[in-house]
Structures are given as C-alpha cells and as structure tokens.
C-alpha cells in the first residue's frame, strides 16, 4: 500500500521537462531554444513550466528559422554553452540538416576532439493520427546512419527522464527523438504503458544500453519507441498461446547495444525487428545483419515488421494499414514457425 502512494507516474512530456529543469538548476550553461518552447511549453508539452521558472533568456522562442538556430546551437555549444534545441517535427530536418550532420556531427572529429559540441537536439517523431507524410515520419535511421551523433529514443517516461539527463550531461551531440503517440498529450491519443513511475531526483539512463523489458525464450522482439509497445502487446498475446517472447527496447540507436541483442537471440534462436521507420536501409536491416554476421545459429529466417517504403499517406485507412502493429508481429512469428 505504501508502494502505491509513492508511485509518481509521469508522461514522457513531463519527464523530459523535469529532467531539463533539474539540469538547468545546477548548470547555468544549459538553455533551451526552439519554436513555441517558451510560454506555450512546446507543442508537445516537453518544455512546460520552464519559461515560468527560467525566463525568456534561457528558454527562448525562436523565429521559424531552423537553419539559423540549429547552426547557432552548434556555435553556442562550442563556446561553452549547453544548448537544448528543439526541432518541432523531425520531418522539418530538411531545412537545417547541414548544421546537424555537417557541423554538429563532425566538428568534434574535425577538430581532433578539441571542439566538442554538447548539443541536445530534441525532436518529435511518429504517426498514426493522420498527419500525412511531412508530419509523421520517424527517420531514426537517417540520423543514426550519419556518424558523429548519438541517437536516443525512449519508450516510457522513466527512460525519457534518464536519457534526457544523460544527454544534457554528455559532451557529444545527442539526438533525442520522442514519439508523439507516447508523449502523453491527450490530443494525440495516449499509450498508457508509456506513463510510468519516475523518481523525483535526477538520474541517468546510460546512453547505448538496451533494456530487456520482458524476458522470454522462444523469440526475441527488438524495437524502439512505439515498436516496443507493439512488441509488448504481441508478447502478451503470444504468451496466451504458450509462446514466450523476449522484448528488447534498444533505447539508443547510436551507440547500438549489439551485445544485448546477440545474447537474447543466441538464447531464443528467433528474431523479429519492429520499426515504425521505413523498412529499407534502416534499423531492421542493421539489427538483422549484426546478428547474422556474428554467425548466431537461428531456428528461422529473421523477420521485420517495419513501415513500407512509401511516403506516409493521410487517409487513416491507408496509414493504419501500413503501420506496424501487434497482429503483424504475431503473423511474422507464425511465418517463422510454420515455414
């Protein structure tokens, strides 16, 4: 009973804001900038309360000028500040990608490590609510593909707070991707399993460490953000049929915790990768080849449940059909065991 009253459940949005506030209190170099991050508290709620506490010098609404403020984040970071910069939707990266992948991601290396770039770039991902293909993409792999940026993406509020704290304290650029459907904003629907207990005190979730969110022995389901929740649902259904699925939440794509994946697949002998990002040239290919190239003995060919290689359509009948879900994971498992 006392346990229950101690439970303090937060949404990912609140957990992100709390982590940022705690770091801003202890480090006056940390500041936030982006569109509508000030008094509005962010379109997705992840800077709520910050403007009230820290004011408009440290929580800065920007013009709609991503090229300028993304480049500015790089310059400020290299001059001793620790900017947290928001790109409202990851889909907008097109107007500012040079600052991200040619500067933020490369300056550390090109300076021989002398000019680090401690930026946190937080950005929303994901679809499922009919916002069409300029506002619904995940694009994890696009960022993960280009060396020099760490890429993290939480599936629940506990990890969101810990990964944000770790990202702010990291001396490297960290892309922090939060999925809109997990954000806990009612207007985007709410994945209840993403709202979990979050300790009051600051803590880090190590970047580059996957979590085993459900143990099992028959098949390994690997996912990130929404893919973790689809996998957990599929695992529950499979359990009713006596099948034991292990679910891994990668949490970080860069660095990628291949060891945890390999250990799990060595145990289960079956692998399904679940990804809301585009199928080809993406996370699913990376995970499967990482397993295959280690010569892990598999009981069946690995499968992937990912977004088809099409722009994300508006109409819900098409979008819902194209998205990964628990049923598709179960179908993939059946294919592996019947084939």
């Amino acid at each position, binding site marked *: 009973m006392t346990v229950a009253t101690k439970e303090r459940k937060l949404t990912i949005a609140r957990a992100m804001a709390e982590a940022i506030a705690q770091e801003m209190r202890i480090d006056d170099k940390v500041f936030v900038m982006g569109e509508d991050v000030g008094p509005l508290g962010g379109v997705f709620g992840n800077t709520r309360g910050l403007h009230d506490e820290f004011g408009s010098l440290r929580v800065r609404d920007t013009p709609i000028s991503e*090229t300028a403020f993304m480049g500015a984040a790089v310059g400020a970071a290299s001059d001793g500040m620790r900017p947290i910069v928001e790109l409202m939707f990851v889909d907008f990266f097109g107007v500012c990608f040079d600052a991200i992948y040619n500067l933020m991601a490369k300056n550390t290396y090109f300076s021989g490590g002398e000019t680090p770039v401690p930026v946190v770039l937080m950005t929303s991902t994901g679809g499922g*609510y009919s*916002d069409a293909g300029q506002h619904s993409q995940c694009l994890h792999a696009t960022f993960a593909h280009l060396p020099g940026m760490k890429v993290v993406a939480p599936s629940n509020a506990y990890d969101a707070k810990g990964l944000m704290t770790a990202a702010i304290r990291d001396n490297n650029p960290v892309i922090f991707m939060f999925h809109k459907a997990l954000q806990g904003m009612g*207007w985007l629907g709410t994945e209840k399993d993403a709202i979990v207990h979050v300790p009051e005190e600051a803590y880090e979730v190590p970047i580059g460490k996957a979590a085993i969110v459900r143990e099992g022995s028959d098949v390994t389901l690997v996912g990130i953000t929404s893919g973790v929740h689809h996998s957990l649902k599929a695992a529950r259904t499979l359990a009713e049929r006596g099948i034991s699925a292990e679910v891994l939440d990668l949490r970080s794509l860069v660095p990628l915790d291949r060891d945890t994946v390999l250990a799990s697949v060595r145990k289960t002998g079956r692998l399904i990768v679940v990804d809301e990002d585009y199928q080809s040239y993406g996370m699913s290919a990376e995970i499967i080849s990482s397993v295959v190239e280690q010569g892990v003995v598999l009981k069946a060919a690995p499968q992937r449940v990912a977004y088809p290689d099409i722009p994300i*359509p*508006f109409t819900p009948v098409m*979008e819902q059909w*194209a998205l990964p879900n628990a049923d598709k994971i179960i179908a993939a498992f059946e294919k592996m065991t019947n084939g």
Partner: protein
Amino acid sequence: MKPSKEQQLWMYEHMLISRYFEESIETIYMEGKTPAFNMAKGPIPGEMHLSNGQEPCAVGVCAHLTPSDVVTSTHRPHHVAIAKGVDLDRMTAEIFGKKTGLSGGRGGHMHIFDAAVNFSCSGIIAQGMGPAVGAALSRQMQNKDGVAVAFLGEGAANQGAFHETLNLAAVWKLPVVFVIEDNAWGISVSKSSSTAIERNDQRAAAYGMPGHFIPGNDPLAVFEVAGQAIERARRGEGPSLIEIETYRLAGHFMGDAEGYRPEGEKDALFAKDPIPKLRAHLEAQHGWTSSDDAALVARCHARVDAAIAFARESAFPAPEEALEKVFV
C-alpha cells in the same frame, strides 16, 4: 486598378464560400473528438488549420489569375484553393481521406494538389516558394504565358528559403509574386517577437524588387495592389513582394486553446471581420440588397453542402492503394 462591381461580387462570393466551408469543416472535424479531443478520431483526422478571416488575401490575389497561372500555398490552404478554382468536391473528399479525393486520400488537408488549375500546397514553412519560382522559370524558359504566386505566412519570412527565393526570382527577373498573409502569429509566437523589422515588404528592397504593404485586411485594396504586381510580372518586369495585414479568426489549428493571445484580441478581430465589411460596402456603393445577399448566401451554402455530401458519400480507398503512385 479598381475592381468592377462584377469583380467585387466574385470576391464576396468566394469569401462566403470559403468561410462557410471552414465553418462546416470545423463542425465536422469535432465529430468523434468529444468529450476527449484526440486528433486521430472522427471523419476528418489529423491537424486542421482553418483560414477564417484570411479570405481577402486569397480573393484579392486570385481574382487576377487564370487556371493556367500557378499558385503554391501553405499548411493553411483552403481559402486560396477555393479562390484559385480547385475542384471543391474533390478537395473536400481529399480532406475526408476518400478515394474520390484529389489525391485519392494520400495527401489530405495540407497536401492539396489540383493540376487542372495549377494549385499545390505543402506543410513545410516557406517551402512553397521555391516551386513557385521554378514554375515562373519554366514559363520564362518555354516562353509560355502565365505567372506564379507563392502564398506564405509572415512567420515564413524568417526562413532561409524566403530570402534565397526572393533573390533568385529577382536576379532572373521571373514572373512571380510573393504574397505574405500577415496574421501576426506563427503558432504562439508573435510577429513582433520573431521578426527584426515591423513589415516584411521592406525586405523587398534588399532583393531589388517592389514591396507593398496592405493594411486593414481589405479585399478591395488587395485587389488593386496584387493586380499591379501580377501585371508587372506578366509584362516580364520581374517579381514583387506583397504583405497583407490579415486576421486569423481561428486558432493556429483545431484544438488550439489560444492562451497566448492578449485579452480582447479575438473580439477586436471579429469586430473587423472582412465579410460584413465587404457586404456593407456593396450595399453602400452598389445597391446590394438583403434579398440579393440572402440569395447569394444560399447559393454558396448549397455549393459547400454539396461538396461535403459528395465527400461523405464517397468510399474510402482500399488500404493497399497506399502502395500505388509512389512512382508513375
């Protein structure tokens, strides 16, 4: 270049259609979204940016355009699409995600394409400007008639694309007109807190083109200024930049609590609603009567109601059609 009575009535009619269209969409959008507001639900899911109050920008400019002229619009496109002559039935069906929609449901409200009247729009801020410049370039290179008009919000004037396209259009003397709908807000951020100068038409000077500012959200004034700029472009004398003071009578998108607006701002804007103002002008100057008005309003409503009925009655596409049209 003053609008004739006929042109004024055309503008008024299209403002009425546009407003009633938005009001209808607003009502239908809320179906399935109460008591809990969830964007994914109802017959029109996703984001919805309404144009209530901004009709003068659309009609004052498009009154000078033919179907062969090119228009690019923004995430807030309905009023411009209606004034440009986009097929209303198929546009509505697209917003409902139906098979009969302009893009078979793939695009939705932020991606309305009607090649028959050279209209398109995009949800990425300022990114309609490059394509408008490209269409103008194509007309120039092919020696083909026609101009391009890019609509954008005042917030978009702070994007890199704005500055690059203005320079490119001017240096190549292209037949293009840039129209800024200044509704004073980019979501929750005011123009004054995000823009280094008061009026964006002043920026035209930096790119060697004429700049015009039109106060008062007045369709008659927009008609005059846009007419000059479009004629100039048609004569091959190059681009112009116009900033129109307009009013966003709706939230940024449906579901916006608008807590960032100063107290009383909304009421003041509604008091200046351009539709009753234009009606009063027609009554005073052109003997427009209440029975004329009732008949026109009824016609406009019937037109919109028919489009909505068409959309509602249309079937959804088959899910697998999602895989089609990636390439042609």
